[in-house]
């Protein structure tokens, strides 16, 4: 798994790190019991404050996404039936799309129809 952040993103850095770990678990690049990079390593790689990394890891631990083995580091958890996680991510993406739509004066109904149409088109392509 690769943890990447974007300083221009509106989400705070620690949230971006948390989202990256969750994403890794969802797409399978991070397997249960895989170690996460150390705070020192990740802070140096991302050029971020180590406290920010520590905060992200702390919150992930509290959410049950990772666990800490004393003296060994932080490890990914078995996230049983990650349907709840998937729904949370989907909601987040939807909220972002809605904000973007509103910015352009596009209503929710209109957006929903457009998403369905786009999905049909992309599915059709996949089938072909």
């Amino acid at each position, binding site marked *: 798994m690769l943890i990447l952040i974007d300083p221009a993103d509106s989400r705070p*850095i620690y949230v971006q790190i948390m989202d990256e770990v969750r994403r890794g678990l969802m797409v399978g690049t991070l397997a249960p019991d895989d170690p996460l990079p150390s705070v*020192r390593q990740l802070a*140096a790689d*991302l050029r*971020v404050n*180590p*406290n*920010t990394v520590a905060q992200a890891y702390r919150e992930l631990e509290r959410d049950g996404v990772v666990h800490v083995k004393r003296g060994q580091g932080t490890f990914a958890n078995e996230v049983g039936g990650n349907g709840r996680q998937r729904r949370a991510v989907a909601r987040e993406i939807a909220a972002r799309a809605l904000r973007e739509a509103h910015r352009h*004066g596009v209503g929710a109904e209109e957006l929903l129809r457009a998403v369905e149409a786009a999905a049909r088109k992309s599915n059709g392509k996949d089938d072909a």
Partner: protein
Amino acid sequence: MTNPLPTRLADGVMAVNTRGLRKRFGAVEALNELSLQVPEGAVYLLIGPNGAGKSTALRLLLDLVRADAGSASVFGLDVVADGPAVRANVGYVPEHHDWGYGWMRVHQLLAHHAQYFSTWDQAYASRLAERFDVDPNRKVGDLSKGQSRRVHLVMALAHRPPLLLLDEPIDGLDPITRDETLGVLAEHMTDSPTTMLISTHHVDEIETMVDHVGAMRDGTLRAQLPLDELRGGLHRYRADVPDGWSGVPSLNGSVLRRSQGPREVQWTVWGDERAVAEQLTGAGATVREVSPVSLHDATLALLNPKVEAA
């Protein structure tokens, strides 16, 4: 206009604490009632236009400049009365490198420096010198701005001081070395607990390291607050407005920046996001977008010399 922004932090253990500092150089008022608070363990970014007094404030903490009024302490030690003890706990990267001992070779200067700091870590100094690509045989007086900055970074970090005062630490460095420096600082923070007070114009690059911000203008603080608080309280609102829009008088004083086109306005406002949006909507605007501001944009907003009407 009254300043809507907070300039005092909540009480806590401060690494740097200054109270009502004043300093005048001839006709120029360099510091005017400056009260900095840098909490222990913070990475505090001091922003401000050229001549705002940032360098003077840092130099004052080393007793290189003495205040006309007010007092300053570092880890509870007075910077004048306990100057030597303060300086033993500070790593300093100066803005200008015109600093004497120009006849020395770099390795001589490092050896000289090492003798003055009881906690000097020679192995770490060598590693840093290698990472920063410092040539030990160059003459100190012949170093370019960037090279001398790197030598100063080695000298400031290698004794692992509890406080780092970094005056434009990445200015004059090439993009790759700038990036490398931030990586070194991040590692350094993990390995040895450090408070950092950084003054720089390279806000974008250092943004991900920072957790506190102080904005200086004309020798005084316009804002001083944790970055989270700044992010939570400062937003950019973009809205369509009807023809003949007359503004939102209730927001006067909280608007830090404003740009207007036909039937559209963008404000950078300090205040509760929902309350501000409601006031804009109540005045007839259709808010299209509320976005958090980057530190770069926050800098422009906090230091905006213009008084903006809503």
